[in-house]
Protein backbone atom coordinates (compact mmCIF):
# COMPACT_ATOMS: atom_id res chain seq x y z
CA UNK A 1 0.00 0.00 0.00
CA UNK A 2 1.39 3.38 -0.91
CA UNK A 3 2.22 5.81 1.92
CA UNK A 4 2.18 3.13 4.64
CA UNK A 5 -0.75 2.71 6.96
CA UNK A 6 -2.89 5.75 7.54
CA UNK A 7 -6.33 6.74 8.66
CA UNK A 8 -6.98 9.95 6.76
CA UNK A 9 -5.15 12.04 4.20
CA UNK A 10 -5.99 15.67 3.49
CA UNK A 11 -4.64 19.00 2.31
CA UNK A 12 -4.28 21.57 5.05
CA UNK A 13 -3.40 25.20 5.45
CA UNK A 14 -3.06 26.86 8.85
CA UNK A 15 -5.32 29.83 9.43
CA UNK A 16 -3.17 31.58 12.02
CA UNK A 17 -1.25 34.34 10.24
CA UNK A 18 1.50 34.19 12.84
CA UNK A 19 2.14 30.64 11.73
CA UNK A 20 1.69 30.96 7.99
CA UNK A 21 4.09 33.91 7.98
CA UNK A 22 6.97 31.78 9.21
CA UNK A 23 6.11 28.24 8.22
CA UNK A 24 7.50 26.41 5.22
CA UNK A 25 4.22 25.42 3.60
CA UNK A 26 0.84 24.92 5.23
CA UNK A 27 2.11 25.47 8.78
CA UNK A 28 0.73 22.11 9.87
CA UNK A 29 3.57 21.19 12.22
CA UNK A 30 3.69 24.53 13.99
CA UNK A 31 -0.08 24.80 14.35
CA UNK A 32 -0.69 21.26 15.53
CA UNK A 33 2.11 21.52 18.08
CA UNK A 34 0.82 24.82 19.46
CA UNK A 35 -2.64 23.31 19.65
CA UNK A 36 -1.41 20.11 21.36
CA UNK A 37 0.48 22.25 23.86
CA UNK A 38 -2.60 24.37 24.60
CA UNK A 39 -4.72 21.26 25.04
CA UNK A 40 -2.21 19.62 27.37
CA UNK A 41 -1.65 16.72 24.96
CA UNK A 42 2.05 17.56 25.11
CA UNK A 43 4.10 19.67 27.49
CA UNK A 44 7.00 20.30 25.15
CA UNK A 45 8.47 19.39 21.77
CA UNK A 46 11.81 18.43 20.28
CA UNK A 47 12.41 20.66 17.30
CA UNK A 48 15.07 21.84 14.93
CA UNK A 49 15.65 25.50 15.76
CA UNK A 50 17.95 28.11 14.33
CA UNK A 51 21.47 28.23 15.71
CA UNK A 52 24.10 30.98 15.49
CA UNK A 53 25.48 29.45 12.30
CA UNK A 54 23.25 30.30 9.33
CA UNK A 55 21.03 27.36 8.34
CA UNK A 56 22.70 24.98 10.75
CA UNK A 57 19.80 23.77 12.86
CA UNK A 58 20.21 22.75 16.45
CA UNK A 59 17.87 20.50 18.40
CA UNK A 60 15.90 22.32 21.07
CA UNK A 61 13.33 21.49 23.68
CA UNK A 62 10.50 23.98 23.11
CA UNK A 63 8.02 24.41 25.92
CA UNK A 64 6.13 27.53 24.83
CA UNK A 65 4.14 28.57 21.77
CA UNK A 66 6.69 31.28 21.07
CA UNK A 67 9.53 28.78 21.02
CA UNK A 68 7.58 26.50 18.69
CA UNK A 69 6.82 29.34 16.29
CA UNK A 70 10.44 30.52 16.42
CA UNK A 71 11.56 27.08 15.20
CA UNK A 72 9.18 26.95 12.21
CA UNK A 73 10.42 26.33 8.68
CA UNK A 74 12.32 23.51 7.01
CA UNK A 75 16.08 23.24 7.37
CA UNK A 76 17.66 21.18 4.64
CA UNK A 77 20.31 19.61 6.79
CA UNK A 78 19.97 17.07 9.51
CA UNK A 79 19.20 18.23 13.02
CA UNK A 80 19.75 15.44 15.52
CA UNK A 81 16.48 16.12 17.33
CA UNK A 82 16.39 12.77 19.11
CA UNK A 83 19.60 13.69 20.89
CA UNK A 84 17.65 16.20 22.97
CA UNK A 85 15.07 13.71 24.20
CA UNK A 86 16.95 12.85 27.34
CA UNK A 87 17.30 16.49 28.22
CA UNK A 88 13.56 16.93 27.70
CA UNK A 89 12.76 14.07 30.05
CA UNK A 90 15.40 15.00 32.61
CA UNK A 91 16.36 18.60 33.21
CA UNK A 92 13.16 19.88 31.58
CA UNK A 93 11.16 17.20 33.44
CA UNK A 94 8.65 16.89 30.59
CA UNK A 95 6.11 14.08 30.84
CA UNK A 96 4.50 14.40 27.41
CA UNK A 97 7.07 14.98 24.73
CA UNK A 98 6.32 15.65 21.08
CA UNK A 99 8.96 14.69 18.55
CA UNK A 100 9.17 16.37 15.19
CA UNK A 101 11.51 14.73 12.79
CA UNK A 102 12.40 13.15 9.53
CA UNK A 103 11.10 9.62 8.90
CA UNK A 104 14.39 8.15 10.12
CA UNK A 105 14.11 10.08 13.37
CA UNK A 106 10.59 8.76 13.83
CA UNK A 107 12.05 5.24 13.44
CA UNK A 108 14.45 6.06 16.26
CA UNK A 109 11.58 7.15 18.48
CA UNK A 110 9.58 4.02 17.73
CA UNK A 111 12.56 1.76 18.31
CA UNK A 112 13.15 3.50 21.62
CA UNK A 113 9.54 2.75 22.56
CA UNK A 114 9.87 -0.88 21.51
CA UNK A 115 13.06 -1.62 23.40
CA UNK A 116 14.03 1.27 25.64
CA UNK A 117 17.54 0.15 26.52
CA UNK A 118 19.50 3.12 27.76
CA UNK A 119 16.30 5.14 27.70
CA UNK A 120 14.87 4.44 31.13
CA UNK A 121 11.91 6.68 31.94
CA UNK A 122 12.22 8.37 28.55
CA UNK A 123 10.40 6.36 25.89
CA UNK A 124 7.25 6.26 28.00
CA UNK A 125 7.17 10.04 27.83
CA UNK A 126 6.82 10.25 24.04
CA UNK A 127 3.31 11.64 23.61
CA UNK A 128 3.23 12.56 19.93
CA UNK A 129 5.34 12.07 16.84
CA UNK A 130 5.08 14.35 13.86
CA UNK A 131 6.99 13.19 10.80
CA UNK A 132 8.07 15.41 7.97
CA UNK A 133 8.21 14.15 4.39
CA UNK A 134 11.77 13.62 3.34
CA UNK A 135 13.22 12.75 -0.02
CA UNK A 136 16.85 13.12 1.03
CA UNK A 137 18.97 15.28 3.25
CA UNK A 138 22.32 17.07 3.13
CA UNK A 139 25.21 17.32 5.50
CA UNK A 140 25.82 20.93 6.47
CA UNK A 141 28.99 21.13 4.41
CA UNK A 142 27.07 19.69 1.45
CA UNK A 143 24.26 22.20 1.83
CA UNK A 144 26.73 25.06 2.05
CA UNK A 145 28.43 23.89 -1.12
CA UNK A 146 25.13 23.71 -2.98
CA UNK A 147 24.14 27.20 -1.89
CA UNK A 148 27.45 28.99 -2.16
CA UNK A 149 29.16 27.12 -5.03
CA UNK A 150 26.24 26.08 -7.17
CA UNK A 151 23.68 28.81 -6.48
CA UNK A 152 26.38 31.42 -5.81
CA UNK A 153 24.46 32.94 -2.94
CA UNK A 154 26.09 33.66 0.44
CA UNK A 155 24.44 31.31 2.90
CA UNK A 156 23.95 34.02 5.51
CA UNK A 157 21.76 35.98 3.10
CA UNK A 158 19.39 33.08 2.47
CA UNK A 159 15.89 33.61 3.85
CA UNK A 160 14.17 30.50 2.51
CA UNK A 161 15.07 27.36 0.62
CA UNK A 162 12.84 24.87 -1.04
CA UNK A 163 12.90 21.62 -2.98
CA UNK A 164 10.13 21.13 -5.50
CA UNK A 165 9.26 20.85 -9.15
CA UNK A 166 12.64 19.32 -9.92
CA UNK A 167 14.48 22.35 -8.57
CA UNK A 168 16.43 23.36 -5.51
CA UNK A 169 15.68 27.02 -4.98
CA UNK A 170 16.95 29.64 -2.58
CA UNK A 171 15.74 33.11 -1.81
CA UNK A 172 18.46 35.42 -0.55
CA UNK A 173 20.88 38.04 -1.89
CA UNK A 174 19.32 36.86 -5.14
CA UNK A 175 16.73 34.22 -5.96
CA UNK A 176 18.27 31.20 -7.63
CA UNK A 177 16.97 27.79 -8.63
CA UNK A 178 19.17 24.96 -9.81
CA UNK A 179 18.18 21.53 -11.13
CA UNK A 180 17.79 19.16 -8.21
CA UNK A 181 20.05 16.70 -10.05
CA UNK A 182 23.04 18.93 -9.29
CA UNK A 183 22.54 18.46 -5.58
CA UNK A 184 22.41 14.67 -5.52
CA UNK A 185 26.07 14.13 -4.90
CA UNK A 186 25.87 16.15 -1.68
CA UNK A 187 23.16 13.99 -0.15
CA UNK A 188 23.94 12.00 2.94
CA UNK A 189 25.00 8.51 2.01
CA UNK A 190 22.57 6.94 4.47
CA UNK A 191 19.65 8.56 2.68
CA UNK A 192 20.33 6.35 -0.32
CA UNK A 193 19.17 3.26 1.53
CA UNK A 194 16.17 4.98 3.09
CA UNK A 195 12.78 3.87 1.81
CA UNK A 196 10.49 6.08 3.85
CA UNK A 197 9.38 9.34 2.31
CA UNK A 198 6.14 9.96 4.15
CA UNK A 199 7.15 9.16 7.74
CA UNK A 200 5.13 5.98 7.81
CA UNK A 201 5.50 5.43 11.55
CA UNK A 202 4.54 8.87 12.83
CA UNK A 203 1.24 9.74 14.48
CA UNK A 204 0.86 12.53 11.96
CA UNK A 205 3.01 13.10 8.90
CA UNK A 206 3.08 16.07 6.64
CA UNK A 207 4.96 17.77 3.85
CA UNK A 208 4.52 19.92 0.81
CA UNK A 209 4.61 17.24 -1.88
CA UNK A 210 1.26 16.83 -3.60
CA UNK A 211 -0.30 20.14 -2.68
CA UNK A 212 0.04 23.65 -4.14
CA UNK A 213 2.16 26.39 -2.57
CA UNK A 214 1.00 27.39 0.88
CA UNK A 215 -0.64 24.02 1.51
CA UNK A 216 0.55 20.78 3.04
CA UNK A 217 -0.35 17.16 2.47
CA UNK A 218 -1.13 15.54 5.77
CA UNK A 219 -1.64 11.93 6.90
CA UNK A 220 -3.03 10.88 10.23
CA UNK A 221 -1.83 7.40 10.99
CA UNK A 222 -2.65 6.45 14.54
CA UNK A 223 -5.72 6.89 16.72
CA UNK A 224 -3.79 9.44 18.71
CA UNK A 225 -2.84 11.41 15.60
CA UNK A 226 -6.28 11.17 14.11
CA UNK A 227 -8.09 12.26 17.29
CA UNK A 228 -5.81 15.22 17.73
CA UNK A 229 -6.27 16.29 14.12
CA UNK A 230 -10.05 15.95 14.33
CA UNK A 231 -10.12 18.20 17.37
CA UNK A 232 -7.80 20.71 15.72
CA UNK A 233 -10.04 20.78 12.63
CA UNK A 234 -13.14 21.20 14.79
CA UNK A 235 -11.38 24.06 16.58
CA UNK A 236 -10.96 25.73 13.18
CA UNK A 237 -7.18 25.64 13.05
CA UNK A 238 -6.95 24.72 9.40
CA UNK A 239 -8.51 25.21 6.04
CA UNK A 240 -9.00 21.75 4.65
CA UNK A 241 -9.36 20.32 1.14
CA UNK A 242 -9.76 16.76 -0.03
CA UNK A 243 -6.70 15.40 -1.82
CA UNK A 244 -8.99 14.39 -4.67
CA UNK A 245 -9.21 18.08 -5.56
CA UNK A 246 -5.67 17.92 -6.83
CA UNK A 247 -5.80 15.77 -9.90
CA UNK A 248 -2.83 13.92 -11.39
CA UNK A 249 -0.05 14.72 -12.02
CA UNK A 250 -0.47 16.74 -8.77
CA UNK A 251 -1.92 15.38 -5.56
CA UNK A 252 -1.38 11.89 -4.29
CA UNK A 253 -0.32 10.72 -7.75
CA UNK A 254 2.72 12.94 -7.51
CA UNK A 255 3.48 11.85 -3.96
CA UNK A 256 3.17 8.22 -4.94
CA UNK A 257 5.47 8.68 -7.90
CA UNK A 258 8.17 10.22 -5.72
CA UNK A 259 7.66 7.67 -3.00
CA UNK A 260 7.99 4.78 -5.44
CA UNK A 261 11.07 6.45 -6.86
CA UNK A 262 12.62 6.68 -3.40
CA UNK A 263 11.82 3.09 -2.53
CA UNK A 264 13.15 1.84 -5.87
CA UNK A 265 16.32 3.83 -5.51
CA UNK A 266 16.86 2.45 -2.03
CA UNK A 267 16.32 -1.09 -3.26
CA UNK A 268 18.79 -0.55 -6.06
CA UNK A 269 21.40 0.94 -3.75
CA UNK A 270 21.02 -1.98 -1.36
CA UNK A 271 21.36 -4.44 -4.25
CA UNK A 272 24.47 -2.61 -5.50
CA UNK A 273 26.01 -2.61 -2.06
CA UNK A 274 25.21 -6.26 -1.52
CA UNK A 275 26.76 -7.07 -4.90
CA UNK A 276 29.92 -5.33 -3.74
CA UNK A 277 29.93 -7.54 -0.66
CA UNK A 278 29.05 -4.67 1.68
CA UNK A 279 26.84 -5.16 4.70
CA UNK A 280 23.34 -3.79 4.50
CA UNK A 281 20.86 -3.92 7.34
CA UNK A 282 18.44 -6.74 6.60
CA UNK A 283 14.91 -5.55 5.94
CA UNK A 284 15.97 -1.95 5.53
CA UNK A 285 14.08 -1.58 2.27
CA UNK A 286 10.47 -2.49 1.76
Amino acid at each position, binding site marked *: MAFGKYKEVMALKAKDAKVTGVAQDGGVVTSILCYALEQGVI*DGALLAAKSDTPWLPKPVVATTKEEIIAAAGTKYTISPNMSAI*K*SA*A*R*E*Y*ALDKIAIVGTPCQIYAARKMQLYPFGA*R*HIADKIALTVGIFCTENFSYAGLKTVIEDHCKVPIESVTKMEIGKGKFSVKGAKDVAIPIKETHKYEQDGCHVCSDLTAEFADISTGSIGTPDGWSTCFTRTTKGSDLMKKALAAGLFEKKEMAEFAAPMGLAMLEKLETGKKDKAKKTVADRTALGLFTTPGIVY
Partner: protein
Amino acid sequence: MEFAPVASSRFCGICPITHASASTDSIERALGITPPKDGVVLKHLCNMGNKLHSHPLHQLLILPDFAKDPNAALAATVRIQKMRKIGQNIVDITGGEAIHAPNIRIGGMKTNISEAAKRKILESLKAYEPIMKENNEFLLKIFQASDVPEKLGVHNNELMATDLHYGNADLFEQEYFYRFSEVTPRSFYPKPEVGEEACGTAPLIGGKAVEGGPKARMTRFAGFGAKDCGKFDPKGAMAINIARVLEIPLTLQKATELATQLDTTKPTMTKPPEAGGDGQRLGVGPQEAPRGVNVHVAKVKEGKIAYYNCLVATTWNILTIGKACEGQHYKWAEHVVRAYDPCVSCSTHLIVVDEDGKLVAEDTI
Protein backbone atom coordinates in the same frame (compact mmCIF):
# COMPACT_ATOMS: atom_id res chain seq x y z
CA MET B 1 40.12 11.85 36.29
CA GLU B 2 36.61 12.13 34.81
CA PHE B 3 36.39 8.37 34.90
CA ALA B 4 36.69 8.13 38.70
CA PRO B 5 33.13 9.27 39.51
CA VAL B 6 31.77 7.23 36.61
CA ALA B 7 33.51 4.06 37.79
CA SER B 8 33.09 4.50 41.52
CA SER B 9 29.39 5.29 41.26
CA ARG B 10 29.05 1.76 39.94
CA PHE B 11 29.95 0.29 43.30
CA CYS B 12 26.30 0.31 44.10
CA GLY B 13 22.97 0.49 42.31
CA ILE B 14 21.10 1.81 45.33
CA CYS B 15 23.24 4.76 46.32
CA PRO B 16 25.39 5.52 43.25
CA ILE B 17 24.61 9.20 43.76
CA THR B 18 26.59 9.40 46.98
CA HIS B 19 29.55 7.66 45.34
CA ALA B 20 29.58 10.02 42.39
CA SER B 21 29.26 12.95 44.80
CA ALA B 22 31.99 11.76 47.18
CA SER B 23 34.21 11.07 44.20
CA THR B 24 33.74 14.46 42.56
CA ASP B 25 34.04 16.24 45.92
CA SER B 26 37.34 14.54 46.71
CA ILE B 27 38.75 15.34 43.27
CA GLU B 28 37.57 18.95 43.48
CA ARG B 29 39.38 19.30 46.80
CA ALA B 30 42.49 17.70 45.34
CA LEU B 31 42.36 20.18 42.46
CA GLY B 32 41.48 23.10 44.73
CA ILE B 33 38.36 24.07 42.76
CA THR B 34 34.83 24.82 43.96
CA PRO B 35 31.66 24.47 41.92
CA PRO B 36 29.37 27.48 41.53
CA LYS B 37 26.80 27.93 44.29
CA ASP B 38 23.93 26.57 42.22
CA GLY B 39 26.01 23.57 41.21
CA VAL B 40 26.45 22.76 44.88
CA VAL B 41 22.74 23.28 45.56
CA LEU B 42 21.77 21.01 42.68
CA LYS B 43 24.20 18.28 43.71
CA HIS B 44 22.89 18.39 47.27
CA LEU B 45 19.33 18.25 45.96
CA CYS B 46 20.21 15.22 43.87
CA ASN B 47 21.52 13.51 47.00
CA MET B 48 18.37 14.36 48.94
CA GLY B 49 16.36 12.78 46.13
CA ASN B 50 18.50 9.68 46.50
CA LYS B 51 17.86 9.53 50.24
CA LEU B 52 14.14 10.10 49.74
CA HIS B 53 14.01 6.91 47.70
CA SER B 54 16.72 4.90 49.44
CA HIS B 55 15.37 5.19 52.99
CA PRO B 56 11.92 3.92 51.97
CA LEU B 57 13.61 1.09 50.06
CA HIS B 58 15.35 0.08 53.26
CA GLN B 59 11.96 0.08 54.98
CA LEU B 60 10.65 -2.28 52.36
CA LEU B 61 13.37 -4.73 53.32
CA ILE B 62 12.58 -4.69 57.03
CA LEU B 63 8.80 -4.61 56.54
CA PRO B 64 8.31 -8.41 56.77
CA ASP B 65 10.07 -8.39 60.16
CA PHE B 66 7.41 -6.12 61.62
CA ALA B 67 4.24 -5.93 59.51
CA LYS B 68 2.36 -9.10 60.34
CA ASP B 69 -1.00 -8.06 58.84
CA PRO B 70 -0.73 -8.68 55.07
CA ASN B 71 -3.18 -5.90 54.19
CA ALA B 72 -1.27 -3.36 56.25
CA ALA B 73 1.98 -4.61 54.72
CA LEU B 74 0.56 -4.20 51.23
CA ALA B 75 -0.63 -0.67 51.99
CA ALA B 76 2.83 0.21 53.33
CA THR B 77 4.46 -1.29 50.24
CA VAL B 78 2.30 0.89 48.01
CA ARG B 79 3.22 3.99 50.03
CA ILE B 80 6.89 3.09 49.94
CA GLN B 81 6.84 2.63 46.17
CA LYS B 82 5.14 5.99 45.73
CA MET B 83 7.80 7.64 47.87
CA ARG B 84 10.56 5.88 45.99
CA LYS B 85 9.15 7.01 42.68
CA ILE B 86 9.23 10.64 43.76
CA GLY B 87 12.77 10.34 45.12
CA GLN B 88 13.99 8.61 41.98
CA ASN B 89 12.30 11.16 39.78
CA ILE B 90 14.16 13.96 41.56
CA VAL B 91 17.43 12.19 40.86
CA ASP B 92 16.37 11.59 37.25
CA ILE B 93 15.76 15.31 36.77
CA THR B 94 18.75 16.67 38.66
CA GLY B 95 21.28 13.93 37.98
CA GLY B 96 20.19 12.97 34.48
CA GLU B 97 19.59 9.32 35.49
CA ALA B 98 18.16 7.86 38.68
CA ILE B 99 20.91 5.24 38.73
CA HIS B 100 24.49 6.26 37.95
CA ALA B 101 23.66 9.91 37.33
CA PRO B 102 25.83 11.30 34.54
CA ASN B 103 25.30 14.96 35.45
CA ILE B 104 27.38 14.75 38.63
CA ARG B 105 30.71 16.05 37.43
CA ILE B 106 34.02 17.24 38.77
CA GLY B 107 33.30 20.96 39.14
CA GLY B 108 29.57 20.74 39.79
CA MET B 109 26.59 19.57 37.82
CA LYS B 110 26.71 19.25 34.06
CA THR B 111 23.56 21.22 33.48
CA ASN B 112 21.03 23.24 35.40
CA ILE B 113 17.37 22.29 35.30
CA SER B 114 14.48 24.29 33.88
CA GLU B 115 12.21 26.44 36.00
CA ALA B 116 9.30 24.12 35.14
CA ALA B 117 11.35 21.15 36.32
CA LYS B 118 12.08 22.94 39.58
CA ARG B 119 8.35 23.56 40.04
CA LYS B 120 7.65 19.89 39.40
CA ILE B 121 10.19 18.89 42.02
CA LEU B 122 8.62 21.20 44.57
CA GLU B 123 5.15 19.86 43.76
CA SER B 124 6.34 16.27 44.06
CA LEU B 125 7.94 17.02 47.43
CA LYS B 126 4.60 18.34 48.61
CA ALA B 127 2.92 15.16 47.42
CA TYR B 128 5.57 13.11 49.27
CA GLU B 129 4.76 14.59 52.67
CA PRO B 130 1.34 13.06 53.50
CA ILE B 131 2.40 9.64 52.20
CA MET B 132 5.54 9.79 54.29
CA LYS B 133 3.63 10.91 57.39
CA GLU B 134 1.22 8.03 57.16
CA ASN B 135 4.01 5.57 56.55
CA ASN B 136 6.19 6.88 59.34
CA GLU B 137 3.34 6.66 61.87
CA PHE B 138 2.65 3.13 60.75
CA LEU B 139 6.29 2.06 61.00
CA LEU B 140 6.91 3.60 64.41
CA LYS B 141 3.80 1.83 65.70
CA ILE B 142 4.76 -1.61 64.40
CA PHE B 143 8.33 -1.20 65.65
CA GLN B 144 7.08 -0.59 69.18
CA ALA B 145 4.60 -3.46 68.96
CA SER B 146 7.28 -5.94 67.90
CA ASP B 147 8.93 -8.46 70.21
CA VAL B 148 12.47 -7.52 69.18
CA PRO B 149 14.63 -7.47 72.33
CA GLU B 150 14.82 -3.94 73.66
CA LYS B 151 18.57 -4.01 73.92
CA LEU B 152 19.21 -5.75 70.62
CA GLY B 153 22.39 -4.54 68.97
CA VAL B 154 23.52 -2.23 71.77
CA HIS B 155 27.22 -1.36 71.50
CA ASN B 156 29.57 1.33 72.68
CA ASN B 157 31.42 2.03 69.45
CA GLU B 158 31.80 5.67 68.49
CA LEU B 159 29.18 7.19 66.23
CA MET B 160 30.62 8.94 63.18
CA ALA B 161 28.70 11.68 61.39
CA THR B 162 29.87 14.76 59.55
CA ASP B 163 26.58 16.43 58.65
CA LEU B 164 22.86 15.82 58.92
CA HIS B 165 22.35 15.77 55.18
CA TYR B 166 25.26 15.90 52.80
CA GLY B 167 28.74 15.45 54.27
CA ASN B 168 31.23 17.93 55.62
CA ALA B 169 34.83 17.46 54.53
CA ASP B 170 36.26 20.06 56.93
CA LEU B 171 34.60 18.46 59.90
CA PHE B 172 35.72 15.02 58.79
CA GLU B 173 39.31 16.18 58.51
CA GLN B 174 39.24 17.96 61.87
CA GLU B 175 37.52 15.28 63.91
CA TYR B 176 38.06 11.95 62.29
CA PHE B 177 40.65 11.82 59.58
CA TYR B 178 43.69 12.40 61.79
CA ARG B 179 42.57 9.44 63.94
CA PHE B 180 41.98 7.21 60.94
CA SER B 181 43.84 3.97 60.35
CA GLU B 182 43.23 0.96 58.17
CA VAL B 183 44.09 -2.62 59.05
CA THR B 184 43.37 -5.96 57.45
CA PRO B 185 40.27 -7.79 58.65
CA ARG B 186 42.55 -10.63 59.74
CA SER B 187 44.22 -8.45 62.31
CA PHE B 188 40.95 -6.79 63.33
CA TYR B 189 38.83 -9.80 64.20
CA PRO B 190 39.68 -11.74 67.36
CA LYS B 191 39.73 -15.01 65.41
CA PRO B 192 42.01 -14.82 62.35
CA GLU B 193 39.90 -17.38 60.48
CA VAL B 194 36.94 -14.99 60.68
CA GLY B 195 39.02 -12.16 59.30
CA GLU B 196 40.29 -14.35 56.50
CA GLU B 197 36.73 -14.89 55.33
CA ALA B 198 36.09 -11.16 55.25
CA CYS B 199 37.03 -9.15 52.25
CA GLY B 200 38.17 -5.58 51.96
CA THR B 201 39.67 -3.61 54.73
CA ALA B 202 38.98 -2.61 58.31
CA PRO B 203 38.83 1.19 58.64
CA LEU B 204 39.15 2.45 62.20
CA ILE B 205 38.90 5.74 64.02
CA GLY B 206 41.17 5.96 67.04
CA GLY B 207 41.95 2.28 66.55
CA LYS B 208 38.30 1.26 66.91
CA ALA B 209 35.33 0.44 64.73
CA VAL B 210 32.68 3.14 64.33
CA GLU B 211 29.06 3.41 63.23
CA GLY B 212 27.75 5.85 60.65
CA GLY B 213 24.26 6.32 59.28
CA PRO B 214 20.92 7.69 60.43
CA LYS B 215 21.37 7.00 64.14
CA ALA B 216 24.80 8.64 64.14
CA ARG B 217 23.61 11.69 62.19
CA MET B 218 20.39 12.13 64.12
CA THR B 219 22.12 11.72 67.48
CA ARG B 220 24.77 14.26 66.69
CA PHE B 221 22.82 16.84 64.72
CA ALA B 222 19.12 16.44 65.57
CA GLY B 223 19.03 15.62 69.29
CA PHE B 224 17.93 12.03 68.70
CA GLY B 225 17.92 9.85 71.81
CA ALA B 226 15.94 7.83 74.37
CA LYS B 227 12.92 10.14 74.05
CA ASP B 228 12.47 9.01 70.44
CA CYS B 229 13.01 5.32 70.96
CA GLY B 230 10.10 4.24 73.19
CA LYS B 231 10.95 0.91 74.75
CA PHE B 232 14.13 0.44 72.74
CA ASP B 233 17.65 1.31 73.76
CA PRO B 234 18.87 4.39 71.84
CA LYS B 235 22.23 2.68 71.36
CA GLY B 236 20.72 -0.42 69.78
CA ALA B 237 19.74 -1.66 66.34
CA MET B 238 16.09 -0.63 66.57
CA ALA B 239 17.25 2.92 67.20
CA ILE B 240 18.72 2.86 63.68
CA ASN B 241 15.37 1.90 62.19
CA ILE B 242 13.65 4.60 64.22
CA ALA B 243 16.26 7.23 63.35
CA ARG B 244 15.84 6.39 59.67
CA VAL B 245 12.10 7.01 59.92
CA LEU B 246 12.65 10.30 61.72
CA GLU B 247 15.32 11.43 59.29
CA ILE B 248 13.06 11.33 56.26
CA PRO B 249 11.00 14.45 57.18
CA LEU B 250 14.25 16.36 57.76
CA THR B 251 15.56 15.23 54.37
CA LEU B 252 12.27 16.27 52.81
CA GLN B 253 12.52 19.69 54.41
CA LYS B 254 16.10 20.08 53.24
CA ALA B 255 15.17 19.04 49.70
CA THR B 256 12.40 21.64 49.67
CA GLU B 257 14.80 24.32 50.89
CA LEU B 258 17.38 23.40 48.27
CA ALA B 259 14.88 23.30 45.41
CA THR B 260 13.45 26.66 46.46
CA GLN B 261 16.92 28.14 46.71
CA LEU B 262 18.07 26.89 43.29
CA ASP B 263 18.45 29.61 40.67
CA THR B 264 17.73 27.83 37.42
CA THR B 265 19.28 30.61 35.35
CA LYS B 266 22.74 30.34 36.89
CA PRO B 267 25.69 28.15 35.88
CA THR B 268 26.23 24.91 37.74
CA MET B 269 29.71 23.94 36.53
CA THR B 270 33.23 25.21 37.11
CA LYS B 271 35.23 23.53 34.41
CA PRO B 272 38.13 21.66 36.04
CA PRO B 273 41.61 22.49 34.68
CA GLU B 274 42.47 19.80 32.17
CA ALA B 275 45.98 19.20 33.47
CA GLY B 276 45.26 20.22 37.07
CA GLY B 277 46.54 18.61 40.25
CA ASP B 278 50.01 18.50 41.78
CA GLY B 279 49.89 14.85 42.80
CA GLN B 280 50.46 15.85 46.44
CA ARG B 281 47.28 17.38 47.73
CA LEU B 282 44.92 14.77 49.18
CA GLY B 283 41.28 15.58 48.54
CA VAL B 284 38.81 14.05 50.93
CA GLY B 285 35.13 13.71 50.07
CA PRO B 286 33.01 12.33 52.89
CA GLN B 287 29.37 11.79 52.02
CA GLU B 288 26.50 11.12 54.35
CA ALA B 289 25.12 8.23 52.37
CA PRO B 290 21.75 6.83 53.45
CA ARG B 291 23.40 4.11 55.54
CA GLY B 292 26.68 5.57 56.66
CA VAL B 293 29.66 7.72 55.85
CA ASN B 294 31.02 7.13 52.40
CA VAL B 295 34.55 8.47 52.10
CA HIS B 296 36.48 8.85 48.86
CA VAL B 297 40.02 10.23 48.87
CA ALA B 298 42.00 11.23 45.81
CA LYS B 299 45.21 12.77 44.60
CA VAL B 300 45.36 14.14 41.07
CA LYS B 301 48.44 14.75 38.99
CA GLU B 302 48.22 16.65 35.71
CA GLY B 303 44.63 15.68 35.19
CA LYS B 304 45.12 12.03 36.01
CA ILE B 305 44.28 10.16 39.19
CA ALA B 306 47.51 9.54 41.08
CA TYR B 307 45.93 7.92 44.15
CA TYR B 308 42.41 6.84 44.98
CA ASN B 309 40.78 5.10 47.90
CA CYS B 310 37.16 4.57 48.86
CA LEU B 311 35.82 3.54 52.21
CA VAL B 312 32.18 2.95 51.61
CA ALA B 313 29.50 3.23 54.25
CA THR B 314 29.18 -0.48 54.96
CA THR B 315 32.94 -1.04 55.03
CA TRP B 316 32.96 1.19 58.10
CA ASN B 317 29.78 -0.24 59.59
CA ILE B 318 30.39 -3.93 59.01
CA LEU B 319 32.90 -4.04 61.86
CA THR B 320 30.31 -2.61 64.21
CA ILE B 321 27.56 -4.81 62.79
CA GLY B 322 29.49 -7.90 63.93
CA LYS B 323 29.86 -6.46 67.40
CA ALA B 324 26.19 -5.51 67.54
CA CYS B 325 25.10 -9.06 66.77
CA GLU B 326 26.79 -10.43 69.86
CA GLY B 327 24.99 -11.27 73.07
CA GLN B 328 21.54 -12.28 71.79
CA HIS B 329 19.98 -15.43 70.43
CA TYR B 330 21.13 -16.00 66.87
CA LYS B 331 17.60 -15.64 65.52
CA TRP B 332 17.92 -11.87 66.09
CA ALA B 333 21.20 -11.50 64.26
CA GLU B 334 19.59 -10.89 60.88
CA HIS B 335 17.45 -8.13 62.40
CA VAL B 336 20.62 -6.39 63.44
CA VAL B 337 22.20 -6.68 60.01
CA ARG B 338 19.05 -5.48 58.29
CA ALA B 339 18.86 -2.43 60.53
CA TYR B 340 22.21 -1.35 59.14
CA ASP B 341 22.16 -2.35 55.56
CA PRO B 342 19.87 -3.87 52.99
CA CYS B 343 22.58 -4.75 50.53
CA VAL B 344 25.10 -6.90 52.34
CA SER B 345 24.27 -10.48 51.62
CA CYS B 346 23.99 -11.26 55.32
CA SER B 347 20.91 -9.07 55.60
CA THR B 348 19.04 -11.59 53.50
CA HIS B 349 20.91 -14.86 54.09
CA LEU B 350 21.62 -16.46 57.43
CA ILE B 351 23.40 -19.67 58.28
CA VAL B 352 24.24 -20.73 61.78
CA VAL B 353 26.94 -23.29 62.43
CA ASP B 354 28.07 -24.64 65.78
CA GLU B 355 31.66 -24.85 66.95
CA ASP B 356 32.16 -28.14 65.11
CA GLY B 357 30.98 -26.56 61.87
CA LYS B 358 27.62 -28.37 61.92
CA LEU B 359 24.71 -26.50 60.39
CA VAL B 360 22.25 -25.37 63.07
CA ALA B 361 19.93 -23.09 61.12
CA GLU B 362 19.50 -21.57 57.70
CA ASP B 363 17.26 -18.74 56.59
CA THR B 364 16.74 -16.48 53.62
CA ILE B 365 14.36 -13.58 53.53
